[in-house]
């Protein structure tokens, strides 16, 4: 009782400096979380002054390796952690220091956190009961959501009697039944096997479109994020590195970390020579979409599947950039062949990975063969670091 008043006191203290009204479902401004470090050591900054707006109805993913701060960010939106600084608004209401039970959001936990002593129906009805929704209304909404997640006939089972996938649906239903303004999902598919995970990815996305609720989805699985999200925020050591639609994140990574973390990539060191021309370490000049001044050292990122491979003596296609090299390794992958090509010349030859389709017409190369590696200037991104 006492500390709830404390929280509201703080709330008003924050209000005057809070940012102007936005129409975002969730908006974070300068949100920072520090955890006390070990004895005598500095506090650990888990989330460092991030700004983020998540639009209403969006499927938004927070993507990053473990320890990057994505889960802490989600837990601050849910109310399990309070921010050390900054403002968290949900549909323009400051919630940063409100306890979780006073926030219009619900969470699907990584471990599902289903109450083991309650049946499926009791689990799902829990939130409605706490909100004092009437008995008839509760029964109606529970039945509705059970149908939505296709768990009819399992209402009276205990969570332990369900498969992992079914438990996952109960967790989802238990959150959705409250009609939250924002649904928070903390790696909800992490405990499922690959096949089920892929099915659930599609189902989750469809369900989100159906209910029209904003989803904030935390994952370390880049493929999952790319498949499901409207937008992705890539996080690393408490910072937001890049926010954008999946295509942009994949095709136009802005930093070395994003390029490396999302999919596989080839990084080529180069120096800007002229406007829109860069020189690779082997001396080859390539074109690129960049406005850096001459002399700047840059890194180019090119996805393996964006690279083409031709014999060294093949006709030169002037629309494409190309470097010479030798096939160092060829790995058969079923639908494709992965080549590792050692680029000739320069001070130190470097390997490049290339993925070629395995269709009947496509040429195969043997180890030791002289080849040219080609790509279109637009498929190479210039990284900021």
């Amino acid at each position, binding site marked *: 009782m006492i*500390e709830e008043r404390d929280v509201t006191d*703080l709330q008003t203290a924050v209000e005057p400096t*809070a940012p102007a009204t936005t129409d975002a479902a969730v908006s974070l401004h*300068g949100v*920072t979380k520090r955890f006390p470090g070990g004895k005598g050591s500095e506090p650990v900054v888990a989330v460092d002054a991030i700004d983020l707006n998540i639009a209403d109805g969006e499927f938004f993913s927070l993507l990053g390796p473990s320890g990057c701060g994505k889960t802490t960010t989600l837990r601050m939106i849910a109310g399990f952690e309070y921010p050390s*600084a*900054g403002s968290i608004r949900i549909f323009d209401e400051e919630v940063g220091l409100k306890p979780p039970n006073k926030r219009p959001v619900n969470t699907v936990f990584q471990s599902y956190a289903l109450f083991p002593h309650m049946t499926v129906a009791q689990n799902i009805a829990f939130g409605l009961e706490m909100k004092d929704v009437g008995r008839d209304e509760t029964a109606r909404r529970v039945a509705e959501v059970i149908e939505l997640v296709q768990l009819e006939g399992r209402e009276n089972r205990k969570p332990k009697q369900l498969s992992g996938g079914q438990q996952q649906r109960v967790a989802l239903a238990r959150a959705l039944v409250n009609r939250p303004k924002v649904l928070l999902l903390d790696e909800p598919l992490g405990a499922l096997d690959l096949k089920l995970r892929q099915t659930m990815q599609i189902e989750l996305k469809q369900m989100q479109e159906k209910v029209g609720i904003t989803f904030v989805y935390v994952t370390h699985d880049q493929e999952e994020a790319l498949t499901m999200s409207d937008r992705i925020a890539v996080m690393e050591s408490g910072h937001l590195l890049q926010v954008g639609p999946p295509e942009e994140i994949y095709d136009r990574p802005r930093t070395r970390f994003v390029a490396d973390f999302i999919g596989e990539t080839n990084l080529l060191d180069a120096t800007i020579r002229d406007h829109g021309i860069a020189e690779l370490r082997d001396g080859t000049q390539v074109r690129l979409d960049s406005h850096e001044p001459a002399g700047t050292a840059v890194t180019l990122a090119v996805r393996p599947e964006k690279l083409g491979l031709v014999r060294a003596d093949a006709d030169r296609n002037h629309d494409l950039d190309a470097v010479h090299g030798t096939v160092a390794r060829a790995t058969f992958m079923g639908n494709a062949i992965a080549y590792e090509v050692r680029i000739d010349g320069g001070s130190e030859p470097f390997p490049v990975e290339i993925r070629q389709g395995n269709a009947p017409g496509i040429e195969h190369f043997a180890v030791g063969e002289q080849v040219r590696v080609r790509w279109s200037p637009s498929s190479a991104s210039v990284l900021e670091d």
Partner: protein
Amino acid sequence: MATTLTPPDSDQTSVPPAKLPPGLETNAEKAESRRGFLIGLPAYAYLVLFFALPLAIVVVYSFATRSTTGLTVLADWNLQSYARLTDSLVVAITWRSLWIATLTTVVSLVVAYPFAYYIATRTPRVRAALLVLVMIPFWSNFLVRTFAWRLLLSSDGPVTRILETLGFANPRLLFTPSAVIIGLVYGYLPFMILPLYASLERMDHSLVEAARDLYATGWEAFRKVTWPLSKPGVIAGSILVFIPSFGAFVTPEVLGGTGTTMLGSYIGRQFVGTASDWPFGAALSVAILFVMMLAAMFYFRSGGKDL
């Protein structure tokens, strides 16, 4: 951005630059800490009043003086009671307590290890049933169980008769150290069995198979794999048996005689009758507590907390 949003009342100017300003969450977290503290407070207050304070009183008494009439005088503070800890009688009693407790521990270990191993290698159903059978006497009244041995070991009791028919002339067990050790082993054996069982049951049996696969004989596999892995259980069980045996009061009183006085009963004697000497008894209590704390520290150091 972040700093402009911290509450104005946090008064950042007074904070030295190296330190981060107090976070927004500080008040909420303080409230949470306070709540946790308040939940525990009744128990803590109780233990401070009825445990910590009595402990302090014992320490105070240990420096007090015994009047000629046997009363305690809370004045003339001195170390005499502690000086008496080196009296030959006290040293003898301490040695006796020590070797009786050690022997009890060793006997318990020798009996309990194969027993725990046997239970741990049964099927889960049998295992559960056997454990219940171990637990039932353990949960039964300790005094009554000790008393039962008095009946068994008495001069006309069954054990004595069996020994007589086996040809032992005048076998006298009751009121000897042997009776005390039997009683202590009987009383505390489950303390040895359970941690041993826990560490043996947790052990991956394929490790033994791996050792056998790598040409170890059964004995070598036991010595090189099973025994080292069960060591935490051995240490935990040994300490759990040693501590109460060393401070035993009931068992030597019920099964022992004049020649088997242990520290526990010796302390007790300082508080009853005309020969009572409370300051000396208090000093002995402080000393025995000190030994126990050392043993307990050793127990936690060796990872006993997991068991």
